[in-house]
């Protein structure tokens, strides 16, 4: 899995209340949620994000509530992948479960600037900064999580397993 895109960068402790404010949670429609993504932090996000862009954050990205609406809103806004120093744990598992690629890499999160052009190789955990001519390595996913990613999320994985079971 490879992604290429331009960077939109934020700081530490980006919480799920700013990723998608609670006042929009009376819907779970991804395209509706995407319209308000990052609204309370950066009103310009929605108008400037382009398909394939890569979101970069500092430490504890996605802290706060368990709302899956947060990674869903990010994914639906067109972001291809999120890189951060560290992720809050519920956000981490939600992103994996819904198939939003995320990478933890402190070096990359520090060195990358807003607007940089990146190529991300997910299976190898490799992030190439084209403009700065640098390569950072993140820890690749453990096999178990790669399986979820490959299946395009946890639900698909379980559905396939159920199907196979009933065929036996």
């Amino acid at each position, binding site marked *: 899995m490879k992604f290429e895109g331009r960077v939109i960068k934020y700081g530490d402790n980006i*919480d799920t209340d700013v990723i998608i404010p609670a006042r929009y949670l009376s819907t779970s429609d991804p395209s509706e949620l995407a319209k308000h993504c990052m609204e309370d932090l950066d009103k310009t996000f929605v108008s400037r994000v382009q398909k394939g862009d890569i979101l970069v954050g500092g430490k504890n990205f996605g802290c706060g509530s*368990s709302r899956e609406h947060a990674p869903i809103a990010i994914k639906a806004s067109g972001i291809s992948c999120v890189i951060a120093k560290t992720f809050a744990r519920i956000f981490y598992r939600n992103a994996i479960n819904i198939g939003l690629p995320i990478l933890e890499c402190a070096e990359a999160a520090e060195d990358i600037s807003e607007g940089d052009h990146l190529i991300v190789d997910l299976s190898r955990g490799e992030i190439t900064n084209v403009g700065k001519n640098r390569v950072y390595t993140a820890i690749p996913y453990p096999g178990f999580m790669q399986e979820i990613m490959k299946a395009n999320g946890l639900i698909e994985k*379980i559905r396939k397993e159920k199907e196979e079971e009933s065929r036996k």
Partner: protein
Amino acid sequence: MGMTMTQKILASHAGVDKVKPGQLINARLDMVLGNDITTPVAIKEFRKIGADRVFDMEKIAIVLDHFTPNKDIKSAQQVKFIREFAREMGIVNFFDVGQMGVEHALLPEKGLVVPGDVVIGADSHTCTYGALGAFSTGVGSTDMAAAMATGEAWFKVPGAIKFMLKGKPGEWVSGKDIILHIIGMIGVDGALYESMEFTGEGVRHLSMDDRFTIANMAIEAGAKNGIFEVDEKTIEYVKEHSSREYKIFTADEDAEYREVYEVDLSSVKLTVAFPHLPENTRAIDEVGDVKIDQVVIGSCTNGRLEDLRIAAKVMKGKKVHPNVRCIIIPATQKIWKEAMNEGLFDIFIDAGAAVSTPTCGPCLGGHMGILAEGERAVATTNRNFIGRMGHTASEIYLASPAVAAASAIAGRIVSPDKV
């Protein structure tokens, strides 16, 4: 090497003798929880699996607490969708208006969690049940969907940080002050991915309500779960609320901890978290002059009977400051009734406070007390993020019920001795 409390519970539910930090396991679940915001997403995902029934009708709890009684048409639609699903699947522990309370106050009260359980909930404060010596953690809707179908969830086994509590808390100092103090000390990612284990002789000075408050906010330090050692108080609570069998797990002597903190409860002061992170804590004597517009006493952190009793003790015979709206929200129907029968409502209403039916309401900026631009609130809730309770230019100060009640009277943040 030995195992921590959490690791032992997880090992027993994964059907293995031993687990170690970082290991990925599949564990059997004793309870799966969802609320009115996260369950609709879970139902849609559940349908995609193609399962025609849930793994166990008694092991799923759905609580409609966030936007209920419904605040608008959209949330009414969402809740209707859940209600139909719950009926179709025969979900036993489905709590609608009139039965419901704030989920994390409700589940222990209904006896749905006992020591040694593994619980996941599509709500981050599911970690609250660690107060009972259970492993419980917040997950997302997809996890909930998968769990409703399979009765299992994947976990990365966490390492742990140990908090050795000693001494007795001073006057007015509560579980809220202790956990705010700890988060101020280690930061909002101080326990990222790990368990916070609370032990030591100081634990016996903490009521169950204090322990629920402390475990509730483990997530605000980034932790996967917070867990208390089981003692007589826990057992008494469990026997009073549940007839289910429970199992006590204790940490091995040689269990490994990333860090061990000693917390002397007698030196913990009344503590307030300033905007916009729970780690921005200050002792009450360093707060300065902070004028406020609203006080909210309630939520899964501090909406229990003991919290209301403390607030009433502070407010008795006094009046809410003319510039302040004070909103009090008992967390469950049972707490509501008990508070009413004890005469606490007379005290609140005579003081000029509003008492609401159970709901999360203002805690997440849903309804029942949203803040306008530039307004400041003292809340007994657990998050003071930007925009959490309303306008992005409003401010939330997190405090205990005692400090919140005193602040409502004074019109600015003060200690209960000052009113």
